[in-house]
């Protein structure tokens, strides 16, 4: 049974449909990324999963329970949540903050040092949050989400506004949780960095689910070309451009696009030419590009 199950879920705020008839599930141990523009409905969706707002239509089930039911409090102990933007109280220390949330969750407060260690905050655990940098606050938020080793982790924009080093730290923790078998629902803008970590992507646009699948599937469905870049002596470049139809040339390299699924054919053709080549580079479209293409398509369909 899926850890999260959404069946024709719709949420209206007045006249606007924040979430429009969405179906999908997140299997145990799966890491699903929720991507979309600001206002695409990601946060609303997360709120419904957490039982903070009731869907206008449809049904949400989390760990087999209705999140709006009073009995859901038992399930909440097994859910870790990092809100998109949280300003912890400045006059409390990091340890007091985690202690508070651990007690609410009924989790042990002995393991807090361990959590601080994991997010690299142990040395500042007893400092006031007022002295924390933005990255430290975000990592504290993440530590808060990890209290009590949750079975389901929901992260809303976990890396927004972080420097690359802190991001890597956050991704490392997500990886660890994933290997430990935690189900993860993550919403993010920083798509390129997520590529290797997620099992499936759900792309939202204006409240609608426009695509759902693995990154490879999405790439193929959308038919985005890969890019091939070849460095070679001038002689070979001439042959290359003639053969592949005069593509873009920049400082001693030829660059051309290759249709989805046609990489091997092109490589074979290249080898058959039997000309001296210096280097070859192949770039698949990033999740970012796939996402842009998907939402662009949706918008065009709308208009």
């Amino acid at each position, binding site marked *: 049974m899926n850890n999260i199950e959404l069946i024709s879920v719709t949420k209206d705020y007045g006249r606007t449909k924040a979430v429009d008839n969405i179906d999908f599930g997140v299997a145990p141990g799966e890491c699903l990324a929720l991507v979309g523009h600001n206002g695409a409905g990601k946060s609303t969706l997360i709120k419904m999963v957490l039982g903070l707002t009731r869907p206008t239509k449809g049904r949400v089930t989390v760990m087999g329970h209705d999140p709006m039911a009073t009995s859901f409090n038992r399930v*909440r102990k097994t859910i870790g*949540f990092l809100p998109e933007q949280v300003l912890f109280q400045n006059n*409390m220390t990091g340890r007091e903050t985690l202690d*508070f949330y651990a007690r*609410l969750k*009924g989790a042990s407060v002995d393991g807090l040092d361990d959590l601080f260690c994991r997010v690299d905050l142990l040395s500042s655990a007893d400092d006031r949050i007022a002295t924390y940098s933005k990255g430290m606050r975000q990592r504290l938020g993440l530590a808060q989400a990890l209290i009590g080793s949750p079975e389901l982790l929901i992260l809303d924009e976990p890396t927004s506004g972080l420097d690359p080093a802190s991001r890597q730290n956050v991704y490392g923790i997500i990886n660890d949780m994933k290997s430990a078998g935690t189900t993860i629902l993550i919403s993010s803008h920083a798509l390129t960095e997520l590529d290797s970590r997620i099992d499936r992507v759900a792309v939202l646009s204006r409240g609608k689910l426009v695509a759902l699948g693995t990154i490879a599937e999405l790439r193929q469905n959308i038919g985005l070309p890969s890019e091939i870049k070849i460095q070679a002596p001038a002689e070979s470049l001439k042959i290359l451009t003639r053969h592949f139809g005069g593509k873009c040339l920049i400082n001693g390299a030829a660059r051309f696009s290759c249709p989805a699924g046609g990489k091997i054919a092109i490589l074979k053709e290249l080898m058959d030419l039997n000309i001296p080549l210096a280097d070859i580079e192949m770039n698949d479209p990033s999740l970012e590009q796939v996402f842009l293409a998907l939402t662009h398509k949706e918008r065009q369909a709308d208009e």
Partner: protein
Amino acid sequence: MNRLWTLVCKEARDGFRNRWVIMITLVMTALALILSFLGSAPTGTTSVSPLAVTVVSLSSLSIFFIPLIALLLAYDGVVGEAERGTLTLLLTHPVSRPEVILGKFIGHLFLLTIAIMVGYGVAGLTIALTGEAGFADQEWDSFRRLLLSSVLLAAVFLSLGYVISAWVSERGTAAAMAIGIWLLFVLLYDMGLLALLASDSGNGINGELVKWLMLINPTDSYRMFNLTSSSDTALLSGMAGLSADHRASDASLVLIMLSWVIMPLAAAIAIFKRRQL
């Protein structure tokens, strides 16, 4: 129960951490001392207990001051956390919405109780110790009533503050409404009642009705409860002329104030339960 206790402790700790309790206690002590000494100066060697004078002065101070600080503490409770983003996080934990409101209420009431007990306690003890009358002969009973009813008054305005806080979506609006509530209960209500009496030529309005109209306001109940608490306080506050049937029993006064605690608190919980996050 454990979770409620955790919430209560957090509110109480916040109050100490941001020096709110210290500040309010100091202000209350200072005001109480000033009022007590000013108030006790003209009594000279009358038969009135200096502590009775203090009770009368302090209850007048309380009517203005306690609702104000209670509202200041409460109006931010829900809406402030909503703006900081901690409310969403809090509610994803295994706590119910009534627990959140009750936790804040108990924690805040604890803070206000400290401020009242210490502030008025210091003033009362000083007056009693410096006075000529014996320590045990003072109007301790009236003083005890003052302390307890002041805590009750604080609870009333905390509850009203949460109603505002659970209802509105912005802190600024909540602050403005808190001031409005304060003006209404502390000033405007009585002025309106006075205007009603003045416009009446003296025979149209039922005295009993006016009395209950007045007492329905918790601040007036509080006033009545303290100013008629003994013959001394009644004499000092000009309430001595009140015939017995114009007074209200202690039980009904306490009941009025208690219902002003319970009903708004229940309303705040009901509103908070329906609040969209």
